[in-house]
């Protein structure tokens, strides 16, 4: 197991540097005018421009700049917002928790419905339910997520309100207000965010269960006199779940990485929404900072999932000892 973990860590390092290098390249080297990107489009005295350029270190050779770039990141310095002069790190510190809330809610939905649907599908293969699940998962992965969000908004927020004369409907934007408890605002965004992932999770769960079903050890279990239920929960699930858990772990990373589309649709003040507004306002430090943050979250969560796989699968946890 140690070997596995060390190997993963070793593989991680070049990727980490590669990613930061690429980020650095795109935000600093590639653009024609990195100064303007950070200070806005306003006209500027050439002398001031040169001063700024020097202050940012853009006149130094690229490798020095890269090292500074890394140093700044380590310090937590992601620049300053053009729009309101606040430190980018601080801006995201405030909005990150909101994204976490949303991501956790979505993951919970995904676990319950994704795994549940997958299990039922596999158990009743080819039944009406299975067909429904396969069909809806196919459709869900082809859906534009932001469109789904808006359709949900329309149906549950607007139509429902009309049809029930305001008796029952769901909040469609923001994190609070409108006479609703705070958690009610989570419902629609969480469903939207979870939708595509739930579809994939259900599919994976189903295919894993079916694959496990054909395994010899399942036959052995039956031969020992176990009932269908025992075989499913005792033997099949644990094997089938390993890839599913891995997938969901990676998914959490993806969700934490801003879910920019969902947040935009629902005006949910998380990382993604912040980035979106920064795009519109051409507030590039915030955009870059946001993308960097997202990237780091994804990178490290992926690494975490990779390593935790070693603990989940006994075949890796205990490296085989060949003895007779």
């Amino acid at each position: 197991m140690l070997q596995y973990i060390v190997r993963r860590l070793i593989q991680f390092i070049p990727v980490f540097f590669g990613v930061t290098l690429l980020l650095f390249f795109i935000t600093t080297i590639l653009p024609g005018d990195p100064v303007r990107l950070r200070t806005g489009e306003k006209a500027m005295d050439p002398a001031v421009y040169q001063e700024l350029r020097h202050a940012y270190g853009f006149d130094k050779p690229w490798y020095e700049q890269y090292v500074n770039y890394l140093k700044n990141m380590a310090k937590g310095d992601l620049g300053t917002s053009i729009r309101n002069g606040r430190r980018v790190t601080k801006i995201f510190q405030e909005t990150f928790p909101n994204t976490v809330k949303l991501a956790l809610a979505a993951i919970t939905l995904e676990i319950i419905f994704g795994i549940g649907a997958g299990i039922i599908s596999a158990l009743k293969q080819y039944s009406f339910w299975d067909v429904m699940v396969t069909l809806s998962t196919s459709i869900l992965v082809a859906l534009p997520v932001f469109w789904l969000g808006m359709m949900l908004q329309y149906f549950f927020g607007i139509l429902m309100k009309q049809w029930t004369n305001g008796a029952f409907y769901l909040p469609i934007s923001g994190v609070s207000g409108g006479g609703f408890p705070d958690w009610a605002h989570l419902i629609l965004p969480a469903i939207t965010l979870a939708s595509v992932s739930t579809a994939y999770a259900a599919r994976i769960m189903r295919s894993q269960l079916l694959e496990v079903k054909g395994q010899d050890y399942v036959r052995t279990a039956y031969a020992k006199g176990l009932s269908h239920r025992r075989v499913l929960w005792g033997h099949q699930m644990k094997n089938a779940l390993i890839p599913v858990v891995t997938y969901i772990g990676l998914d959490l990373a993806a969700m934490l990485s801003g879910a920019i589309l969902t947040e935009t649709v629902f005006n949910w003040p998380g990382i993604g929404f912040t980035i979106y507004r920064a795009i519109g306002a051409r507030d590039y430090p915030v955009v870059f900072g946001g993308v960097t943050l997202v990237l780091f979250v994804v990178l490290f969560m992926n690494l975490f999932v990779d390593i935790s796989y070693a603990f989940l699968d006994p075949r890796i946890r205990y490296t085989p000892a060949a003895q007779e």
Partner: protein
Amino acid sequence: MADNGRLLDVEDLKMYFHTRDGVVKAVDGVSYTLDRGETLGIVGESGSGKSVTALTMMGLIEMPPGRIEGGDAKFEGESLFTKTEAEMRDIRGAKIAMIFQDPMTSLNPVYRIGRQIGEPLVLHKGMSKKAAWNRAVELLDLVGIPNPEKRVKDYPHQFSGGMRQRAMIAMALSCDPDVLIADEPTTALDVTIQAQIIELMEELQQRTGAGLIMITHDLGVVADVADNVLVMYAGRAVEYGNVDEVYYRPLHPYTWGLMDSLPRHDMTEKSELCPIKGQPPSLIYVPSGCSFHPRCPYAQPVCKAEEPEFKPIEGTHWAACHFAGQAGFERGTVECAGVSA
């Protein structure tokens, strides 16, 4: 519960698979009996239906697409096919236990050995987990695994092939079954380990007095351990008798072919091996009459027209051949009559 019936009594069992591509006659007339302390060897080529027969008896075949088409299999006098699923579950693992061919894939990779061995004990004997675990240690010792207290906590991939098979045997024996079915227990193992495993099974059988069914395509193994032998071909029983009869005075041309195809110790490099010509038939398109007739060097028109009955020819020695036991119908010389590779 039981009357004075034999331990196992299989009578003309037929089980077909009804698939999209046709009806697969996987088991097409198999009969044999088994008593306590007795070892039955079931031999045949791959695809002869020897494993499927055992699985059918244990109720481990999915029905549909499988279906019992006739015959019966009685355990201690009671038909296994009239039992409810719950009753069968009580029998599986406890009264009739099965050891499978490939121990690597037949053991669950994510559970420890101790737990897997103890599982039938918890299930059938109501033991506590702890008690089952301790018993598992004893069983591992019984099957000859060194350091059982330590190894019981291992996962299957930490065992070598031979040890895994021993663990499977331990698992099968845990509830003291009356019948032990070993499906190709040595095929996936090294030759040197094979001998050990066979010896182990013999020893355990003598100790527990269970009936042992050894399914294999290895004639040598059967000669070693079996009291009785059943030869199967294309899903049908073609010869049955005690081991001496079948090996020294075989009645069926297929058995002759099998014996002839064995490499002999007095062969030189120049000697040719003598396989049976042709291929085993598809179980969907089984040849008419005697299913062996297309490959039989002695076939006559009646062989194609009529299916021979599987009946006793000499006392307890049965065969399914129109000419078995007739005067002059004997095995040809070993010089491979009309063989092509």
